[in-house]
């Protein structure tokens, strides 16, 4: 089966927008879901729903099995050692905030540092700014070069024993740059810092093995990997999670409550206060199955070829400048065009059925670095093909024509 046959699995792709067949090139913002995911969620709600963990009746048992089954699928997907290391969150953002508030805030002191990079998504910047403000710690930012690659030497120079945490994206959402995360972690391990990897843009495009990476935390979102919105994962090493105080209080995260003494539940429940997004987790489990069946390596190989074609074709357009030309990239190509603001370009493309994202991509520091107010960004998933790229290019030519006069 050729990769592009998978396109038919995604109902949202088969519609007309403004009288044109939809060309969806915004998967880095949120991917479409295949029918198997949509149906798994609906089927769960139609047949198996009840609250989890607390009931002896059949539906509650089925719901719990479905929910914990999804956790086990996620564990295997990123090769975590134990399923108790998989904490369900609303998304990457909540996962990172959990680490900021529950792991870092209690131990952070004035004089401590948090090391991030200039490539990060706001969700991997603002949570650290918030804890820095509360504790007097300092946020240190590793620089990038003109290709949008991390300057590794500079990053390594910023590593020292004052750094309590390195928080780093696996793949940049604005530029697509893939960081050599394995090497970086090895280097960081020479010091006593914890390591969080923001994998939101990695898991849909490549295989991830958290044990091989040896990171302390790995965060990602369901909706970027063909799962439902409202789902996400924080992987944490058991010992780290075990040592952390709970973040939110409520049902399910306790073994025993009285007004004088409260005993917290075991992992992962300690960090899952309240009724979780059960149907969402079921959908995420289905998304994991979907990706696994195709094979992360196959997806990566196919997308890499398509990304090269995309970047090449874009480069043929007069006045178009590629933003983000790292040697090692995934899924994403940002660009700007002389005299056409990205936002206008977005509208003109949408008018022709082509959906791209325009703006700062929640990575304003990257925009500042390239001294642009924003970029246009085309991002790919396994369901895209050369025809999508060709339609994008044709639509851009119309925009340049319109603005040229």
């Amino acid at each position: 089966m050729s990769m592009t046959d998978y396109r038919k699995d995604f109902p949202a792709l088969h519609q007309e927008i403004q009288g044109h067949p939809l060309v969806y090139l915004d998967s880095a913002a949120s991917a479409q879901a295949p029918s198997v995911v949509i149906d798994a969620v609906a089927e769960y709600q139609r047949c198996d729903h009840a609250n989890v963990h607390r009931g002896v009746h059949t539906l509650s048992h089925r719901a719990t099995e479905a929910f914990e089954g999804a956790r086990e699928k996620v564990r295997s997907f990123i090769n975590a050692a134990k399923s108790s290391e998989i904490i369900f969150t609303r998304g990457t953002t909540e996962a990172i905030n959990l680490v900021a508030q529950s792991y870092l805030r209690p131990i952070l002191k004035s004089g401590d540092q948090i090391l991030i990079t200039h490539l990060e998504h706001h969700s991997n910047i603002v949570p650290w700014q918030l804890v820095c403000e509360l504790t007097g710690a300092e946020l240190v930012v590793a620089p990038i070069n003109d290709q949008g690659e991390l300057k590794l030497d500079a990053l390594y120079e910023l590593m020292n024993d004052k750094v309590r945490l390195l928080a780093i994206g696996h793949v940049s959402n604005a530029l697509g740059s893939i960081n050599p995360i394995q090497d970086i972690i090895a280097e960081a391990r020479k010091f006593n810092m914890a390591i969080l990897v923001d994998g939101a843009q990695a898991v849909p495009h490549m295989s991830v093995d958290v044990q091989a990476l040896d990171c302390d935390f790995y965060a990602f979102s369901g909706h970027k990997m063909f799962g439902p919105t409202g789902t996400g994962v924080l992987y944490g090493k058991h010992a780290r999670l075990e040592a952390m105080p709970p973040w939110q209080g409520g049902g399910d995260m306790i073994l025993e409550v009285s007004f004088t003494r409260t005993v917290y539940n075991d992992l992962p429940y300690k960090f899952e206060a309240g009724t979780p997004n059960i149907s969402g987790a079921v959908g995420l489990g289905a998304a994991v199955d979907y990706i696994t069946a195709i094979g992360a390596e196959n997806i990566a190989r196919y997308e890499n070829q398509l990304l090269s074609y995309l970047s090449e074709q874009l480069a043929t357009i007069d006045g178009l400048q590629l933003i983000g030309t790292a040697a090692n990239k995934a899924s994403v190509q940002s660009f700007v065009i002389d005299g056409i603001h990205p936002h206008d370009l977005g509208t003109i493309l949408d008018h022709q059925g082509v959906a791209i994202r325009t703006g700062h991509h929640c990575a304003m520091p990257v925009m500042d670095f390239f001294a642009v107010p924003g970029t246009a960004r085309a991002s790919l998933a396994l369901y895209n093909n050369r025809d999508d790229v060709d339609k994008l290019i044709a639509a851009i030519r119309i925009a340049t024509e319109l603005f040229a006069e």
Partner: protein
Amino acid sequence: MSDANLDIENLRELYRELILDHARNPRNFERMADATHSAEGINPLCGDKLKLYFRINAANIIDDAKFEGSGCAISTASASMLTEFVHGMDMNTALQYFELLQQRLTAPDSPVEHAPLDLGKLRAFEGVREYPSRIKCATLAWHALRSAVQCDDHPASTE
């Protein structure tokens, strides 16, 4: 007409010549050192960021208006045209024009509130109606005008 030409025709309803002209050559595009009122407008959707400056005299007349910043063609043209449009205008009248503009863009069929007012050149933005996500661009500068005269120092956002 080919599909592509049809697309271009439709898009010209949005990107009218007047708008493209103001976007390419924004008027009053500079800092104002002696502004009595100023405000920032940010559209988080696309990162548009404008700063509007006004000199308003004791009689509430807008003596001068300038802007700087960066934005799409629609928001730049809108700011540029605003600075010309409100020049010499009573502040309250300017705010009424904002209401009128917003109404014409979002609910064109509702009864007109400020009947005697005439949008004049601002009619150029009527093409935005068909592009609901761009209405914010066409009104960002006006939001900032309102913030400025209300002395609100949080950046105006169109959300």
